[in-house]
């Protein structure tokens, strides 16, 4: 049974989640991938205001395809997360509490999740048309020049994800694979 959670997150949202939990996310999340992460980080280092409030924020690693006429967004599945690893610890230090992507994270990210209290979720990579149905509104709020990499504010309803890494060190990729590995 999937847990229903609301974004942005509170401290309780994060403490209540464990690796392996299926969730349905409703609320506001932000898109950001490679170049957006670089710009957000550069802004933080320069002491500039960010295009959205990081407190409790959830970032979805996605570069959607363009919306067809009459649609809110195009296909919108997750991109591979490790490319954001160089930037994520600083964003967590400044308030980021949730990340949605796919694929394994590196140790500095996992350490920062424990230290600051954050969760990493996977969405199903390549189920991009299916996932798009849970996105009810989308608007570009920063870095429009980056095209698919611009930061979008999304209003989602019942966005399906699964907790990969919780703030307690749980790792679904490790335990899941260990269960089915044959020597």
């Amino acid at each position, binding site marked *: 049974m999937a847990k229903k959670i609301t974004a942005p997150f509170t401290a309780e949202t994060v403490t209540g989640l464990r690796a392996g939990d299926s969730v349905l996310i409703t609320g506001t999340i932000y898109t950001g991938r490679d*170049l957006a992460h670089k710009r957000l980080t550069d802004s933080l280092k320069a002491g500039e205001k960010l295009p959205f409030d990081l407190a409790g924020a959830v970032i979805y690693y*996605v*570069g*959607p*395809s*363009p*919306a*067809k006429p009459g*649609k809110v967004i*195009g*296909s*919108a*599945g997750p*991109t*591979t997360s*490790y490319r954001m690893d160089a930037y994520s610890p600083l964003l967590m230090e400044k308030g980021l509490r949730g990340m949605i992507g*796919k*694929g*394994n994270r590196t140790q500095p990210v996992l350490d920062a999740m424990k230290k600051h209290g954050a969760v990493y979720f*996977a969405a*199903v*990579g*390549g*189920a*991009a*048309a*299916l996932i*798009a*149905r849970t996105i009810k509104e989308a608007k570009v709020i920063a870095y429009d020049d*980056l*095209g*698919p*990499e611009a930061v979008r504010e999304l209003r989602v309803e019942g966005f399906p994800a*699964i907790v990969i890494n919780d703030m307690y060190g749980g790792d*679904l*990729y490790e*335990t*899941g*694979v*260990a*269960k*089915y*590995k*044959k*020597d």
Partner: protein
Amino acid sequence: MREIRFDTIKDAVAKLCIDANCLLGDDVVQAFKDGLAVEESPTGKDILNQLLDNEQIARKEMVPICQDTGWAVVWVEMGSGARVSGGEQYDAIQQGVAKGYKDGFLRKSIVEDPLRRKNTGTNTPAIIYTDIVPGEGLKITVQPKGGGSENMSEVKMLSAADGAEGIKKFVVDRVARSKANPCPPVIVGVGIGGTFDKCAMLAKHSLLREVGSVHPDPFYAAMEKELLERANKLGIGPQGLGGRVTALAVFIEAFPCHIATMPCAVNINCHAARHRSVTL
């Protein structure tokens, strides 16, 4: 000499880009269904079912299966008895890709320089591989290739002494190290032989094969079967969450080799294994 019009090629390429991105091949859909029968993980089964649902939505609404609509890799077999009229073949293909990605609401994923990273806005340039073949036809295949799985690919210069086991170890290890990143269940393209660059091209070309097809050479057919079994013992499973179905297929293309070398390339494809062909 048969003439093929510039606009005929351009329009055909545009349609191939759209169709390849929105209509998953029957072979891949069948492989998902076959995977459901052997997958032991409930989560893995759930994911395979979601991929089947996703494929149906994409087909019905003509939207991309995956938001990463890929780098347009275009394979051209140009008959020596055919010529293009009204412009250059290269331009017709590039303009066709730009048109397809615009008209089909496909994502533009190409930046004009690897370090300065400004998006070209058209998803061009396409990567074009051309062969001149006998006849008067023109066969064009568009293979949109996603970036996430491309990142899990690798070329290794092995020695003859490494033998078949060296190749197998490298291939299985490459799948193992890719873990959840390339959107498993994956299709594993393997190039063996040729030069450093040729073997990478062989690996990419092998990904055009139909899932479920058997290699015509029994030696490589047996190696493909063994590699697929070994990949599926890794436990990575759909989306890397654990399970039996890590790979849907392993395809090998071999080529003559220099006496000093034995290069091997592994080109990983995500489960959205897309390609479409037309003969003009």
